[in-house]
């Protein structure tokens, strides 16, 4: 379980996140949603220890601020929104970096083959020999996800659940790969790991999240199941946009929802 109590983060004297309580349970996908600049990424960075915060964050009951980097790395992996690479690494070399600090949780001899399996999971079979910088933005994002998956390959290690933190994991992906990646997240949660994801697509959120945390102006505007949270009033208040939940478009305008995926 990830428990954050009364989290506030200030950057350069400006308070970006204030007094947020957050809980992510193993076995669940917890989504963080909210408009641009509402503090989603800042909250995620506090939960992963990247930014200084006030309040407490515990991972499986242990205080995050007291953990060494390598201890935290065995409990959770983090996919950033974007990653700039400074040297010409191959895709395999990048994915293999996921294995350097944490523990994948597979048998010792199988670590060497893990990059291939992780690449296959994100639909990048045969990309191991390509140069990272030659790939498209969406492909790069999936390579990073493969690296992150290697780090916590087994969702449960020695009886303790592990966690995936994903910052907009599907932001630059086509619809097929959005579904593939979200299914990976849900599968990780099904096997008793925990997932914390920042999402923008409310349909994907409704489809995959077990619990939604809505941020608005750095504060928690609502938290609960998709059914409880996603309603007309909240969307209008938070996103400043009059939308109707569950309304079909008028006339015969085509629309495609991820929920219709076979």
């Amino acid at each position, binding site marked *: 379980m990830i428990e954050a109590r009364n989290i506030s983060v200030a950057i350069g004297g400006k308070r970006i996140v204030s007094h947020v309580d957050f809980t992510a349970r193993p076995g669940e996908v917890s989504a963080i949603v909210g408009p641009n600049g509402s503090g989603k990424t800042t909250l995620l960075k506090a939960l*992963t220890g990247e930014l200084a915060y006030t309040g407490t964050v515990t991972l499986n009951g242990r205080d995050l601020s007291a953990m060494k980097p390598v201890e*935290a790395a065995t409990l959770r992996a983090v996919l950033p929104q974007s*990653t700039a690479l400074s040297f010409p690494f*191959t895709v395999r070399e990048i994915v293999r*970096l996921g294995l350097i600090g944490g523990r994948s949780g597979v048998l010792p001899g199988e670590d060497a083959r893990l990059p291939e399996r992780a690449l296959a999971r994100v639909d990048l079979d045969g990309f*191991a*020999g390509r*140069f990272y*910088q030659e790939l498209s933005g969406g492909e790069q994002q999936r390579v990073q996800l493969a690296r992150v998956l290697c780090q916590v390959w087994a969702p449960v290690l020695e009886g303790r659940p592990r966690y995936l933190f994903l910052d907009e994991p599907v932001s630059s992906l086509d619809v097929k790969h959005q579904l593939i990646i979200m299914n990976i997240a849900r599968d990780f949660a099904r096997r008793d790991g925990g997932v914390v994801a920042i999402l923008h697509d409310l349909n994907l959120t409704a489809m995959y999240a077990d619990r939604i945390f809505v941020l608005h102006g750095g504060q928690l505007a609502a938290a609960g199941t998709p059914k409880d949270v996603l309603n007309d009033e909240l969307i209008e208040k938070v996103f400043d946009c009059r939308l109707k939940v569950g309304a079909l478009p008028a006339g015969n305008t085509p629309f495609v929802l991820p929920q219709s995926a076979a």
Partner: protein
Amino acid sequence: MAEQSIAGAPSRAMAADGDRSAWARFVIALLCLALALSVFMSLTSGASDASAVRVIHDWFTGAVPSDGALAARDRLIVYDIRMPRVLLGVLIGAALAVCGAVMQGLFRNPLADPGLIGVSAGSSLGAVAIIVLGTTWLAPVTLALGTLALPLAAFFGGLAVTLLLYAIATRQGRTSVATMLLAGIAISALAMALTGVLIFMADDRQLRDLTFWQLGSLAGATWPKIGTVGPVIVLALAAMPFLSRGLNALALGEATAGHLGIPVQRLKYTAIVGVSAAVGASVAVSGGIGFIGIVVPHVLRLAIGPDNRYLLPASALLGASLLLIADAVARTVVAPAELPIGIVTAVAGAPFFLWILLRKRGVVDL
């Protein structure tokens, strides 16, 4: 496109599955051979006709040479002149190349080099201060530290510049390359100006020493000097392999390296202290030898990729070999006089550096 120019060249030397470790190990074996050849060449060539082969042969076999006086002269030349010079060349070549690779990993940029960003200038300032002021203002320091005063001063000079650069160029975990290079230029200029003041104060004898020392040379190699700076360089280089995995992770950014379980802050401090120590020691004995630290890692990244587990040892080997070759050129091109080696490495290295800039014009994030 920028992406292509950065990745185009190395694809030649790469296995199809993206795993370059076997190839890197092969290249390292070749470089060991190249270093052995360079050492042999340096031991056997020189202004005198002393035969290193015979000396080494006699030493191994215990044979008693027929002409005792000639053999004694040759032994003197080989043991006391060429050998320390070769050993110093190996140590300094390795130190400069590895420090270049580590700095580039740390600053996440292929253009970071201790000489370019002012670390060497800081070391110079420290060393010149001891040379010029060692008998007057800084007499207590030189008295207390003896022969260690010069390398220590060079070390702290380099350390001060590196820490200052890092503090200036890094904001919220991101090191700005433009700031780093520009700050490096400013700090270099300041260090050189202070060095200039010291030179202004120097007497004629110190002046001549300083000029040649600043141009860079292995000519002053003696066993006692190696005894002083050798351990510093060897210790610093021995620490570097422990940084290689962390430096690899750092290529993804400081935050991601931390998420991967790397103690980033400790990594940065170890790297900075190690680089300052090795560069300071190198500058203390051989003056400013430029471009080894930028050319060697760059060539090797093209050949075996940027994985620091292989890049660091390969840099040490190639840096040592190249410096021995440059030293051989310096000794022979205007024989019987001797060109400062810093001139040789600059003449060969500066155009190469420009070539890197032109090739990567779109990539270098200035």
